[in-house]
């Protein structure tokens, strides 16, 4: 195939922050023409969030924004102005897909709900993604993926004990929902290809994210058991946890280890140089019965070892293990390197900066970042002249009136 799978697919993208932009990034990285429509008055909040190039704040300097918006074009409109909404409606016939991630009332207030857009573009596919969905008593709940991670149960099951919660990092559910929403979008595009019908996709981050907790919910409904945090304890592996290794240049290093059976345990002990083996741990029953002291024992065995070298030795012995990588380690990780994960793209204002690549690789239609993220309004002129045939003078006037930026 000479071009990417979504070449020729046009997306008008109102989404902001994470879930929507990461969703449309998949389409853009595989060839769709995704036009990010940003309000100049209220630009994407990630533009105001670090990390910034050279740690310098600036609307076009955020890597946080850049990483989620590769391969897209940027159009800046002031959607609070009627003329901007007229421009949008004129562009609509060009689009195959419209996406948005505001709270439900925003687009309705602009007179741009699905029904009114469908009157202009009958086979339109539209994705609305918000916290709790377009219907129901809590539909207008605003928030971010960190709050949703609390509301959908991830915080409750995170910690050493119920009294000592330790939430997962960041806006966790923001990074669950996109894989569901992009599957829905691609399948909807395929369905439209087969049937000629568009559709409306009402995506609640809440409802997608609960799929990552399905066993806990099945259990509760079937038996009434309420899962709480169990630290790193497993009923399947012992030992199972993170154990501190030797520090490196003053930085703490840990290794994650999971031992499934006696053979793996024997391997681990052999890698440790066959210390005077503690008979308590020789059998599965012994290891599970004495989990707390087992953790201490393994901790004492690995405390002076180098985490990387120990990983190689344990894996050679068939034991599941890897260093607990920090964000700096990830940039030196040989396996991410071998996968070609990190990519440096030359952004218009930031210059070369570090982007994450895809977490998969395709043999025949390899995708990936096609170009760096747009600056605010970087392609306003280009998009308006290309899609609407506006002259330079007309665009200038729209800019004077602060409709276009």
């Amino acid at each position: 195939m000479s071009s990417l799978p979504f070449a020729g697919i046009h997306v008008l993208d109102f989404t902001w922050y994470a879930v929507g932009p990461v969703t449309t990034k998949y389409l853009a990285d595989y060839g769709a023409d995704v036009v990010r429509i940003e309000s100049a008055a209220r630009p994407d909040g990630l533009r105001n969030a670090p990390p910034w190039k050279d740690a310098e704040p600036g609307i076009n300097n955020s890597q946080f924004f850049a990483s989620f918006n590769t391969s897209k074009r940027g159009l800046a409109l002031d959607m609070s102005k009627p003329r901007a909404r007229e421009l949008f409606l004129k562009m609509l016939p060009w689009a195959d897909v419209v996406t948005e991630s505001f709270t439900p009332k925003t687009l309705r207030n602009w007179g741009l709900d699905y029904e009114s857009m469908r009157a202009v573009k009958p086979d339109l596919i539209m994705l609305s993604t918000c916290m709790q969905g377009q219907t129901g008593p809590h539909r207008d709940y605003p928030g971010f993926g960190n709050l949703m991670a609390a509301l959908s149960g991830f915080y409750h099951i995170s910690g050493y004990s119920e009294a000592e919660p330790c939430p997962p990092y960041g806006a966790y559910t923001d990074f669950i929902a996109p894989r569901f929403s992009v599957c829905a979008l691609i399948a909807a595009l395929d369905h439209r290809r087969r049937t000629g019908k568009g559709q409306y996709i009402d995506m609640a981050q809440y409802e997608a994210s609960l799929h990552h907790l399905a066993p806990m919910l099945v259990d509760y409904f079937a038996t009434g058991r309420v899962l709480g945090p169990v630290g790193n304890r497993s009923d399947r592996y012992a030992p199972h946890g993170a154990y501190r290794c030797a520090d490196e240049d003053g930085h703490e290093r840990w290794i994650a280890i999971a031992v499934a059976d006696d053979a793996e345990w024997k391997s681990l002990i052999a890698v440790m140089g066959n210390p005077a083996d503690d008979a308590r741990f020789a059998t599965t029953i012994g290891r599970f019965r004495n989990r707390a002291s087992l953790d201490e024992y393994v901790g004492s065995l690995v405390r002076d070892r180098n985490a990387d070298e120990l990983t190689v030795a344990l894996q050679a012995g068939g034991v599941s293990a890897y260093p607990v990588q920090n964000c700096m380690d990830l940039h030196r990780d040989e396996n991410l390197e071998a996968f070609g994960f990190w990519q440096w793209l030359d952004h218009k204002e930031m210059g070369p900066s570090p982007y994450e690549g895809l977490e998969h690789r395709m043999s025949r239609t390899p995708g990936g970042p096609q170009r760096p993220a747009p600056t605010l309004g970087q392609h306003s002129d280009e998009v308006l002249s290309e899609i609407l045939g506006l002259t330079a003078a007309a665009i200038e006037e729209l800019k004077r009136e602060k409709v276009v930026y």
Partner: protein
Amino acid sequence: MRSELLNGVRMLDLTDEKGALCGKMFADMGAEVIKIEPPQGCPSRKIPPFLDDQPGLDNSLHFLAFQAGKRSVTLNLESADGRELLQELVKRSDFIVEAFPIGYLESIGLGYETLAELNPRIVHTSITPFGDKGPAKDYKAADIVSWASGGAMFMMGEEGKPPLQMSVPQAWLHAGAEAAVSSMIAHYARQLDGLGQHIVVNAQACGVWTLMNEQAMPLLHGDYLRRSGVFSGAIGGRRKTVYQCMDGHVSFIIAGGPYFNSTKAVIAWMNEENAAPEWLKGEGGLKTLTPSGFMAATAADLKELDDTEEAVQRFFLTKTKKELWENILKRRLFGAPLANAADIAADPQLKAREYFVTVDHAGLGRQFTLPGAFAKMSETPVGPQGAAPQLGEHDHEVYGGLLGLSNTEIIALRAAGVI
């Protein structure tokens, strides 16, 4: 009723836990997903915890949750008959997804090249812990090990204590969902030119994609984030994210930027109830907090935020989880209770949207309630298509119906340990 979205599409699911969610998402979208298990059963049937704490091939909660709506056939790939049956299935399928060690399928003569000769349309998705090229390509990775490799674990937990995983392991779910996405992209490409391809999913890289953009901090700002319990150091700040209340915990954040209005509103609420300390009373409240930018910039700002957090913590201790949630909704605060399974099951929002779906498990003679549609699609509703299958439940249907084997042949294959 089967969703129309992917109706007519067939996926062969040879994964264990490492890819369970991929086939589940396809089944929810209406694809026919045939789970191919070794005759003794997929290892994921043995993942604890179990229903009623009773181990048994049908009782793993992981299996009940993530195999729902699939069909199950048994197949011994170590036998020549088994390999031939798989080839026949591949000829009649659109997708094959697996998570074997790198090179295993080639070693039994069923690598992608062979499968593509049998069926050039096939999309073959391989789920791996570390990709297929680096020094760790043959490594084993239990979920916690994959979680550690992608960077999320290091940042979760208390300083000085071990890094943590969540109590429902997450790493392989991200990889499974990524397998679904990439398979769908390849599916779309195939509809255009009729050709399939081979995909390699890298679970470690999936882990990195849960880190927001923290992974760029060391390169751009010069340091990496340490874990700090309930304090979030995400993207440059250090804010308290979990507050105690009378009967549990809530998540709440005092900050500027998008949290500015919410921060103002909680102070206003404290003032209404005469619960604000003297310096937070009256107009203005917080003096240095700015509506732009996530994070306050100066030391004075940070001191003020710390002091506000303390005041809010004292206030929340006088409230129940329920009261706080009602006020979060009413006052449009950026907060949320730390909900547990019981709270989620009773949530009026999920009820209003008829989210949870109950399916019948004939073999166990029980009903199970599952997370429902991951999205509401107006033309092609999606959602659970049924309960998890029993081992080999669909042997006859698939080998007899789809491949046209006679009853005698099926009995012979069973006797020979092939199925």
